């Protein structure tokens, strides 16, 4: 006759789960998240207690929403076997690559904790999940970024355009559109678009056709053309394909002979955005 205790039964049950991970009572989970948008991640899973009962895991963690603030939440486990985990966002408008979640197994509850294993890491949405076991460990820069349409700051009359990549972000600039409305002063304006790292100019490309008084001229900045062109009152300025901009980098204008009454519209940018990471 086999003397089958509850503990032995639980151990035998765990052996049937190929990925079951034994954890001592000192171990716990930490959910770490980074996001560009407000929301919350929900971590669910199953935990096999030492007495053989399967306990569901359900934990909610609020995302850091400014790309830089790393939000963490600890989840004690107790002694037993971790069977599986799944992470998904609560319903909301957070799109692909806007929220990044990592789940670690750590030893220690607070203060100096030691990461023992990274179980899952990657971008999640409210419909696309990460799972342990199953999902690969993916960094923030290893997958396609978020496609974002940005309406920038509308400068005062006589002022230049300037957009700064937010802290914690990395942009691939796909297109920029802005309109220059010129006043009645006679002058030949020529916008030049500068890309800098906050201090050092890395690139400047300009229009080759003058913009005269009392005009409303849309200007597009985009890859795919070899030289600046002007056609039917629209100016196009070339951009290197795949131009990557780090946090603090700027794209701005320097407009030759810009008059005090000349007015740039708010720029519209199309960018692919990544979170730099945790």
């Amino acid at each position, binding site marked *: 006759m086999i003397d089958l205790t509850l503990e032995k039964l639980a151990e035998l049950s765990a052996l049937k789960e190929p990925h079951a991970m034994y954890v001592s009572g000192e171990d716990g989970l930490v959910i770490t998240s980074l996001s560009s*948008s407000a929301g919350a991640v929900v971590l669910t899973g199953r935990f096999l207690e030492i007495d053989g009962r399967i306990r569901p895991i359900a934990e909610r963690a609020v995302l*850091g929403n400014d790309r830089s603030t790393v939000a963490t939440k600890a989840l004690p486990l107790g002694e037993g076997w971790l069977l599986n985990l799944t992470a998904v966002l609560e319903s909301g*408008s957070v799109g692909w690559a806007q929220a990044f979640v990592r789940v670690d197994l750590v030893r220690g509850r607070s203060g100096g904790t030691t990461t023992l294993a990274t179980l899952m890491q990657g971008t999640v949405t409210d419909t696309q999940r990460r799972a342990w076991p199953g999902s690969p460990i993916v960094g923030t820069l290893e997958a396609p970024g978020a496609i974002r349409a940005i309406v920038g700051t509308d400068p005062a009359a006589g002022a*230049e355009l300037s957009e700064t990549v937010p802290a914690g972000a990395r942009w691939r600039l796909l297109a920029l559109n802005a309109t220059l409305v010129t006043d009645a002063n006679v002058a030949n304006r020529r916008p030049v678009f500068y890309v800098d790292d906050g201090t050092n100019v890395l690139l400047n490309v300009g229009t080759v056709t003058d913009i005269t008084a009392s005009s409303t001229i849309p200007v597009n900045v985009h890859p795919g053309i070899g030289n600046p062109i002007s056609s039917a009152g629209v100016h196009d300025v070339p951009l290197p394909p795949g131009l990557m901009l780090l946090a603090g980098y700027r794209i*701005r204008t320097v407009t030759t002979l810009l008059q005090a009454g000349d007015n740039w519209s708010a720029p519209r940018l199309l960018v692919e955005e990544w979170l730099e990471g945790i």
Partner: protein
Amino acid sequence: MARKRCNTCNGEYDDELPDGTEYYHACPPVYDAARQRFVERPEKRDENVPRIAGEREGRRALVSRGRGTTAL
């Protein structure tokens, strides 16, 4: 969503974009004729968040507040 005017550069912007992400205004540089180069605007406002920041007493940490903003 709130529309604001920067009291340093007079630029106008919404603090939240249509996709739900927050917008971080930063004042453009100004041309210094004497030095013949662009320099940072005095009292520049930069709403970007320092790398290690978060909230302090309910206010989001900014790189620099400049002269503040006016709600529109």
